[in-house]
């Protein structure tokens, strides 16, 4: 079929985790014949193992589908996948900017969740046509009418024509496709105007370089064209353009309204900024596609190899991960306790966890990760102002005039019976109450402003446990506020372990110190001598525990058959020792360093 902008439809799927986005995408691919049932490996779009395991999308790939509607007309549908987590909200917004419509998928047994709401609002801000889909209607606990009403009351969308579907059973798929064709407007754009193509994501291909995922807004993108990245003014020559079906399929050109990819021997994904505009170097557009911004890391952590000789492997691994993840930043760092490592910046805790898991799994590394830290802004008494991403960089208390920490706007969606415990939790975490609204008689939405550091310090788990798992949350950075913050240090056997330091609000510092020292006392094995563990703020000891000296470590019986077992035990012990870090003369295992990350009781 030739290019016809009126026959194009660009849409994405907005859904909370586990509400059925991927299954629905699978069904759509099947129904349109894009992939035969045999070719389908479940949830094709989520290519990465980790993505599949956690049921989330990390890379926002698109798929071009051909659909012949009931009216006999052949349409070209572009399904643009969106990352599904608050950590990646900027990527979500750029994917939305590539669409004209969105399927809003809500689980008929769960209803609307905080994250769905956040993404729907974002979609509305982008003027997308929203098609509500009520999924999992086949389940016995499904309540489609209640969800329909929720959509109308909470979001203010007309849900009278909401499609009842079951992605798992294949129900409603045709209705969804018809609705896409009928309700989502075709893209507006002039194929002859100067080229403006929005980069909404990218990935690194070892043979082709960085591949930009683009939505052409205006103009036409050709093979061999010289293109320009408007944010950096850097030029590249197009090697290939095409679409994903979902495998890469090459075209001669992409025109206004179309979605696909561009390969231009771009050496670095860092040169492919999400949200940037690609234009024709020979005939540049006057304006960029609005909405571009530089993404900044929110959470920092130190990553260290347990074995010093794996430093190079770690560095190579981080470099390789960065190839495909422009939002990962890292710099070499040294810790007195842990030796040589890297200070890494992440978009959020999930991002950090993903990176950590990939490093351990794909590169076989044994790692120590320090407590995550946000970025603090310090103004010293001498007027000097700077930011720190590592607690050890905090200057002594007497030199500090003001410390500021990042705050977020937090939204928590929770069943009404848990409103009390959740408000208590938010208050505990230094949240500032903004307001509350009732979505329906059974669910409430709470709005708070809260320091980001309190959120990354186990807030999500505490929220889930206080609400039996029913609460969902979303947050957005809103700027920095000053706080009464102090640095808590941990000393083991009199020696300060810099990797265990953290910055805490003064009111919480002593309690955190006590909890940490208690945890460390359990996690650090007894040594041949007594080991005191102390938490200090400045010079003041705020908590102290003692690990008694080891008195007995002996195998009473060792006869014939026991000998092999004992030998194997010895070997295991030696292996286990490799996972210990010697701080002074105390052996500290990996778990102890991870203790700082753990949930508080």
């Amino acid at each position, binding site marked *: 079929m030739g290019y016809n902008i009126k026959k194009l439809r660009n849409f994405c799927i907005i859904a909370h985790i586990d509400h059925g986005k991927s299954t629905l995408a699978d069904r759509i691919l099947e129904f349109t014949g894009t992939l035969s049932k045999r070719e389908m490996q479940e949830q094709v779009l989520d290519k990465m193992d980790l993505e599949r395991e956690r049921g989330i999308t990390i890379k926002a790939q698109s798929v071009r589908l051909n659909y012949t509607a009931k009216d006999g007309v052949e349409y070209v549908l572009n399904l643009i996948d969106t990352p599904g987590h608050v950590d990646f909200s900027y990527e979500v917004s750029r994917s939305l900017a590539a669409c004209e419509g969105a399927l809003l998928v809500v689980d008929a047994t769960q209803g609307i969740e905080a994250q769905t709401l956040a993404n729907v609002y974002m979609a509305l801000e982008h003027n997308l046509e929203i098609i509500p889909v009520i999924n999992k209607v086949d389940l016995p606990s499904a309540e489609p009418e209640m969800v329909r009403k929720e959509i109308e009351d909470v979001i203010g969308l007309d849900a009278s024509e909401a499609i009842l579907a079951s992605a798992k059973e294949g129900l409603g798929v045709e209705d969804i496709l018809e609705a896409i064709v009928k309700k989502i407007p075709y893209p507006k754009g002039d194929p002859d105007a100067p080229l403006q193509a929005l980069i909404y994501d990218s990935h690194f291909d070892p043979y082709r370089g960085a591949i930009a995922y683009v939505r052409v807004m205006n103009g036409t993108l050709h093979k061999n064209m010289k293109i320009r990245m408007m944010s950096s003014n850097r030029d590249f020559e197009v090697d290939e353009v095409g679409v994903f079906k979902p495998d890469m399929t090459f075209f001669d050109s992409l025109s206004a309204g179309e979605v696909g990819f561009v390969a231009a021997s771009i050496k670095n994904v860092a040169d492919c900024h999400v949200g940037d505009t690609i234009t024709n170097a020979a005939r540049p557009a006057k304006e960029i596609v609005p909405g571009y911004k530089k993404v900044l890391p929110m959470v920092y952590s130190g990553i260290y190899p347990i074995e010093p000789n794996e430093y190079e492997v770690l560095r190579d691994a981080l470099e390789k991960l960065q190839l495909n993840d422009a939002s990962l930043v890292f710099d070499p760092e040294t810790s007195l306790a842990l030796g040589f490592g890297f200070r890494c910046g992440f978009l959020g805790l999930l991002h950090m966890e993903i990176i950590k898991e990939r490093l351990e799994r794909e590169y076989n590394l044994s790692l120590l990760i320090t407590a995550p830290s946000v970025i603090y802004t310090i103004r010293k008494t001498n007027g000097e102002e700077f930011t720190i991403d590592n607690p050890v960089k905090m200057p002594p208390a007497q030199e500090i005039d003001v410390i500021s920490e990042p705050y977020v706007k937090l939204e928590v969606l929770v069943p009404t019976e848990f409103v009390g415990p959740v408000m208590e939790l938010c208050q505990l975490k230094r949240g500032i109450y903004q307001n509350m609204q009732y979505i329906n008689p059974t669910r409430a939405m709470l709005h708070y402003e809260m320091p980001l550091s309190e959120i990354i310090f186990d807030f999500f788990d505490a929220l889930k446990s206080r609400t039996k798992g029913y609460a969902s949350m979303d947050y957005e950075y809103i700027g920095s506020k000053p706080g009464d913050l102090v640095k808590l240090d941990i000393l083991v056997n009199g020696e300060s372990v810099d990797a265990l330091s953290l910055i805490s609000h003064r009111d919480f510092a002593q309690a955190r110190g006590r909890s940490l020292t208690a945890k460390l006392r359990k996690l650090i094995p007894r040594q*041949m001598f007594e080991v005191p563990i102390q938490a200090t703020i400045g010079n003041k000891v705020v908590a102290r525990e003692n690990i*008694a000296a*080891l*008195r*007995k*470590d*002996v*195998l*009473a*019986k*060792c*006869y*014939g*058959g026991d*000998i*092999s077992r*004992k*030998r194997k035990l*010895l070997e295991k*012990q*030696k292996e286990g*020792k490799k996972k210990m870090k010697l701080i002074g003369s105390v052996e500290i295992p990996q778990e102890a360093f991870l203790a700082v990350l753990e949930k508080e009781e």
Partner: protein
Amino acid sequence: MVESLYIHVPFCVERCHYCAFYSTKADQPAKADGFRVALSREIEQSAASGGMAATLRTVYFGGGNPCFDGGRTVAAVLSMPCIRSRIGFETEVTVECNPESADMHTLQQLISSGVNRLSMGLQTTNDKLLTLIGRRHTYADFQVALSRAREAGFRDISADLIYGLPEQSISDWRIDLERIAALDLEHISCYALKIEEDSKLHDMICSGEVPAPDDDLQAEMFELASGVLAAKGYEHYEISNFAMEGRRSRHNLVYWQGGDYLGLGPSAHSRTGRCRFWNESSLDAYIQASTQGETTRHLIALGISDWIMEIAMMMLRTSQGINNEIFARLFGISPVSVMNEKLQEYIEDGLMDFDKGGIRLNERGFLLSNRIISEILTFSYNLDS
């Protein structure tokens, strides 16, 4: 060629609560018969294969309860021509038994079969604790069994004690020690209670029925035992074993001094040079294989470093420790070459002794032997190449 045999008799009336050795219930005479037949076949085959020395230095019957059938199995084995011909005046023949199995008839049967050493399980002299740990006798029963054994003619008797039992106090233990020290036994073994995963005690602890053992209390009990028994003239010759002069368990010393031994019966282990082999822990499989002319034997050969490490580790369990000459004869290298700088530290800390003869752990070192041994043994070069 081995000079030491171990025979595993896997039958018990009932399993004691702390035990994780392989055994089955002794309630099927047919099974016992099947076992005896299979055992004698295994023994004959081993003798015929040329692996047994012309004269054995030690023979040891363990299990289970080797006396579960009044000594019949033991007598049967010792009367086999291939065994009888290998037993000399100097051969130490040990049989383990429980006080409730030690009736006069059994004891006499053992003596007449050639058994010259008896090892009796006492565990504790506290009757309440005996019940708690699933033993089926009282202290009084033990005392009677002991006097019977003397009467039957046993002049080399050992008793086992366990300390750190649930709800056992240090004074309970002191009483055990004082009582046993007064019995004039030639040999005493004192074991710290270890909770084995497959034992009933393990379940009792998980359910909260009894408290878990206390390492520090066990340390105190170990020290008490050393003191009391040393004062009585016992030599603390291995971490858990005490003997009067000339009365060490020669069989067990084979394990600890790197000697070769042959294990017969289900779950029994063997060592010859760098080879380790063992029978599966299944009586049924043992019998079944035997009827088909096969064994349930598994074999591995250790690499050189593993071999040296294993022997070094075992030697350090004894008060003699690693003897330079013996080590050199076995491996062609000196003991210090497989140790690192921690050795110096431990000597300075008063946990190890070092002289012209060799290296050893002392009393304090025994208590921390796991930690010490795992820290000091090292290989600075790859011996396997």
